[in-house]
């Protein structure tokens, strides 16, 4: 039990990244790839070990560990301690993160051809930043890791995606703008709690104790600042513009990480800060959150229907399923809350699956235009079957991971004690309308790419620019997709079916945490 320590979990990817970057690591492409893949798999196993020894019933944060290394004197006086902790909620996201990073690294075998020496360390730094966000127990530590992920993300999007697009810059500016407001909220909270309770502390738990003394409008102000910061990351409609472009202009493994994990940071932030610290304000703002969620859901669905670029369809699919998360969070009931968290997990898997499919198709046909695609099932039948499983999961068919989330959110919406019952019922009808639309555009995506007799410009071999500029032709095996892609797709399909058939396996982990947060709300 004692060999499980969070700092090791978080900083090991960082150390390995530095190792790969360091001069005495052989600069040979295959060695780097193999080494980082092995490390990612080890890291995933290590994170699942956390799951085995985690007893969900214990109250509050388990695996608490304080890193004394950083406790410089001025930090101590400011009350900022580098403490990491993990409860049910963050454990789920930690495992999801390391799972998706492992898949991204396996998938980037055929997708990445240039600058390996920089690519894999960047991915590992991104991983440690994400893990840090989910395990930080200190407000400013949370913010530190929140900003840290911007740097690798910017380079990953711009260097390996299509160069000239301004998407990377737009992504950084949007997120930075959001996080500045978030920092404002944190600082105001931090100093005001100091002025009230006299002790200067940035620990989330102690902050939550002291804040209920503030004036209501003051709490609302901090609440909105924090909400705005997370709204940019979990794309809520007015601030979602960066998502489509960033997804389109980034290479597949990077967009898998972006859709799979980065969107969850926003959701996790809302749960940890907005609900954790300001329960009364949250219950006043809950109807607003529900409306925002439904708008997100329908707006994403409507946009996805008319897109011609398949990757944009997946991007707007992510937008619309994040809307469902918002509705779940806004519904204030335990079912809704757990439905929202389950939806985040299942969306992580499904969006990665869809993006993987789009990546494979793009690699073979070099085009993402939906009108130019078709008939790929004749060339890669295995990819079609796995794609079918992932698309059915995306639609929310029962016994796949999409359905339990949707069902729990809907029931949670009704069980929430927001007075106008009619408002809840019409919100349910709109959510359900979103589910129908999702069936529409996901099937359109699946049919337009796989079915049909005419074979699009499928090329058995693709010409790709290698490290030092010479063109190499990569011949794909007869069955259409390489081994690494099959591994990724089948792992994702298995996870989607597993969580669909046994949703309790995920629900039990964060059941206690959601009870704590909701009881705190009821008080």
């Amino acid at each position, binding site marked *: 039990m004692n060999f499980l320590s969070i700092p090791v979990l978080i900083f090991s990817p960082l150390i390995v990244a530095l190792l790969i970057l360091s001069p005495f690591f052989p600069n040979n492409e295959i060695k780097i790839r193999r080494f980082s893949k092995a490390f990612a798999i080890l890291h995933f196993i290590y994170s699942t070990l956390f799951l085995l020894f985690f007893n969900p019933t214990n109250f509050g944060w388990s695996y608490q560990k304080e890193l004394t290394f950083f406790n410089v004197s001025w930090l101590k006086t400011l009350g900022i301690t580098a403490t990491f902790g993990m409860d049910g909620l963050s454990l789920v996201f930690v495992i999801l993160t390391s799972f998706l990073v492992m898949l991204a690294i396996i998938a980037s075998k055929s997708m990445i051809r240039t600058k390996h020496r920089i690519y894999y360390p960047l991915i590992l730094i991104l991983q440690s930043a994400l893990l840090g966000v989910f395990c930080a127990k200190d407000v400013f530590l949370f913010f530190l890791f929140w900003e840290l992920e911007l740097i690798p993300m910017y380079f990953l999007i711009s260097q390996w995606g299509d160069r000239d697009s301004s998407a990377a810059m737009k992504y950084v500016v949007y997120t930075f703008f959001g996080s500045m407001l978030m920092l404002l909220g944190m600082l105001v909270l931090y100093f005001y709690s100091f002025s009230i309770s006299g002790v200067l502390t940035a620990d989330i738990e102690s902050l939550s104790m002291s804040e209920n003394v503030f004036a209501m409008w003051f709490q609302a102000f901090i609440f909105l600042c924090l909400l705005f910061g997370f709204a940019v990351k979990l794309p809520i409609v007015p601030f979602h513009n960066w998502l489509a472009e960033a997804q389109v202009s980034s290479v597949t493994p990077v967009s898998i990480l972006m859709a799979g994990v980065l969107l969850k940071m926003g959701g996790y932030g809302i749960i940890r800060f907005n609900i954790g610290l300001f329960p009364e304000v949250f219950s006043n703002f809950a109807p607003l959150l529900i409306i925002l969620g439904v708008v997100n859901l329908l707006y994403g669905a409507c946009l996805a229907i008319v897109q011609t670029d398949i990757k944009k369809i997946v991007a707007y699919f992510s937008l619309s399923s994040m809307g469902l998360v918002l509705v779940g969070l806004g519904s204030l009931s335990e079912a809704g809350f757990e439905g929202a968290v389950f939806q985040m997990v299942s969306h992580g898997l499904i969006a990665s699956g869809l993006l993987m499919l789009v990546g494979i198709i793009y690699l073979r046909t070099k085009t993402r235009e939906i009108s130019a695609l078709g008939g790929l099932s004749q060339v890669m039948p295995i990819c079609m079957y796995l794609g079918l499983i992932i698309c059915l999961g995306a639609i929310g068919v029962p*016994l796949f991971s999409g359905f339990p989330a949707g069902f729990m959110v809907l029931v949670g919406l009704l069980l929430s004690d927001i007075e106008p019952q009619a408002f809840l019922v019409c919100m349910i009808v709109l959510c359900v309308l979103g589910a129908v639309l999702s069936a529409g555009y996901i099937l359109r995506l699946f049919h337009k790419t796989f079915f*049909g007799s005419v074979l699009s410009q499928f090329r058995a071999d693709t010409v790709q620019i290698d490290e030092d500029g010479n063109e190499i032709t990569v011949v794909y095996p007869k069955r259409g997709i390489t081994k690494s892609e099959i591994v990724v797709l089948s792992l994702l399909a298995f996870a989607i079916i597993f969580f669909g058939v046994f949703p309790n396996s995920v629900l039990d982990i964060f059941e206690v945490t959601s009870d704590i947060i909701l009881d705190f709300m009821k008080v």
Partner: protein
Amino acid sequence: MNAVLTTISEYFVQSIATVLFLPLWVVLMIFINSSIPFLASKKMTLNLTLGSSFLGFVFAVFSLFYCIKNPQALVENNITWMSTDFQISFGVFVDNLSALMLVFTSLICFVVQLFSFGYMKKDESFHRFYIYLNLFMFCIFGFILASNVIQSYVFLELVGVITYLLIGFWYKKRSATRAARKAFIINRIGDVCLLIGIVVLVYFSVVFNSAQNMVTLSYSTLQFAVETLYSMVSDNAYLAIGVLIFLGIMAKTAQIPMQNWIVGTIEAPAPATALMNSFGIVAVGVYLCARFYPLFILSKSLMIFITFIGIVTALIGAYVAMSQNDLRKILAYSTSSQLGVVLVGFGVGAFSASIFCFVVHGVTKALMFLVGGALITSLKNEADIRYMGACREKLPLYAFSFFIGAISLCGALFSGFYSEASLFNSVLDFGNEFLSFGFLLFVFMSAFYLFRAYFLIFEGDKKDDISQDFSEWTIKCSIVLLSLIVIFIGYILRGCFGDFIFFISPDKLNYLNLVQNVLLLFVVFGAGFIAYQLYMAQNKTYIILKEKALNKSNLPYKLSYNAFYFDKVSDWFAESLFLRLCRFFDFIEKYVIGGIFVVLALTTRVFSYIFSRSQTGNVQSYVTYSLIVLSGVLAVVAVLYILGSLMGV
């Protein structure tokens, strides 16, 4: 002997769940078998599938026997599937209704699988078809044995998915994939309405009797739950829930607003279409209606609504089927109309009669689709009945079995008569004149198009291009088996529907009312006679009548042929209204929200340009600027000083 039987049936009923997981195991076996290139023997796949369906049939018969033995016993065992603040569990629930449905579904699955061996022998994705059939069996058994509403919703959607897969089996055909997508989306719309109803029911069940251990909304306690709900909730709220749930059933049984997907099922391979139109997805709708009957029966207006929808669909379906030329389209529209009649039975209150009618319809429709499929392949995929003719000499078996099916379906002889007569009597007892007249009109029209199809295909002038008989023993034997079933099932089961399958108290199935039966037979044979005159005998008056009635231009024919233009209306709505709205959103997204970012970038660039212009390079201008600033500062200081001194600070 009796004791042995009861113990065996006891054992079978308890382990009914094996029926559920057997097909999954078979799917795995087929998958392994087919992925080994040289060993993949088609025979092995057939035997495995037939074994699983036959075993299912044996289990079903024994559970039926068990239910007959001790009528009130409800077998139910559940495992918790999902637990938030309420518990959702999966389980097996066997009572009279589900046992009977299980028997027939497994029987039809068995026959269809037997038939499709011959039919799909030459097809290259043979194994994939059998995998789909087995998955279908898993879903339909799961649905029938569902112990609570949520589990039935789960398997209901799964049946929808498998139907989508079956319809889109030949994915190279664009029309097949489009029909599959349309079927899935329309079913999805129905399911989603059902989901809202179920969510509301779950809410009430959790709020009112939140006994934690009680499985939410299990069928055994549905009666009690619905009564408390009725007393709790205002009438129109109750009606709203009922309509929402009925919308789900309407989509499944292809009722009027959502019926154009049923025509799409003809794109699937013939055995799959047979399965779907008999005990497949439509059976799901009727069975769900039977399960939710306690909820419907409580509100009068809901029953009226069901009857209205049922009779309208029956009439429109029959009317459209009259003018169709494609054999499979006729049968598809007849499914929609027959199910409309079944729902009328439910609406009228004749629970057992409608179930009986549905079962008989299922068996006959399966027979006719199988015969149709075999016929079309033997005529080198010629599905248009106008080009068929005189097939009786060449294909006597098909002719004879098609005739049996037609007669039974329109209620003249064999098992169709029992079900049609009982339904007709209960409709007449209901007393509404329009309803009974509509029912008679429906019987007339369905008899007309069935006889029309029979005469055009099997009688009439000779067509030479009939290929040799599609002689495959599996096809022949399955058709013979099914014909025998169609002939005798009515007689065997007529007794048990009154007192075995009933809603509250056993109501005797009255089909012996002589006057009503004679009226029914008169209408049926009248329609047959008219069809005979029109299509067979060269009677001048009827030929003139035919020219006038059937020339392509007049409105009734066009309405009937294009199925009241439902497809065009729905496509127009989707295309012009909804997609235009979405494109408008897309426009906003690209230019308005995206625009803000571009505008921001531009303003920063403009400002930077302005400031750079001010650096003129002329030294003297710099000095003047500095002087101006200095003088400003000094002036301010002086003013402040003066103010200060004036104020006497």
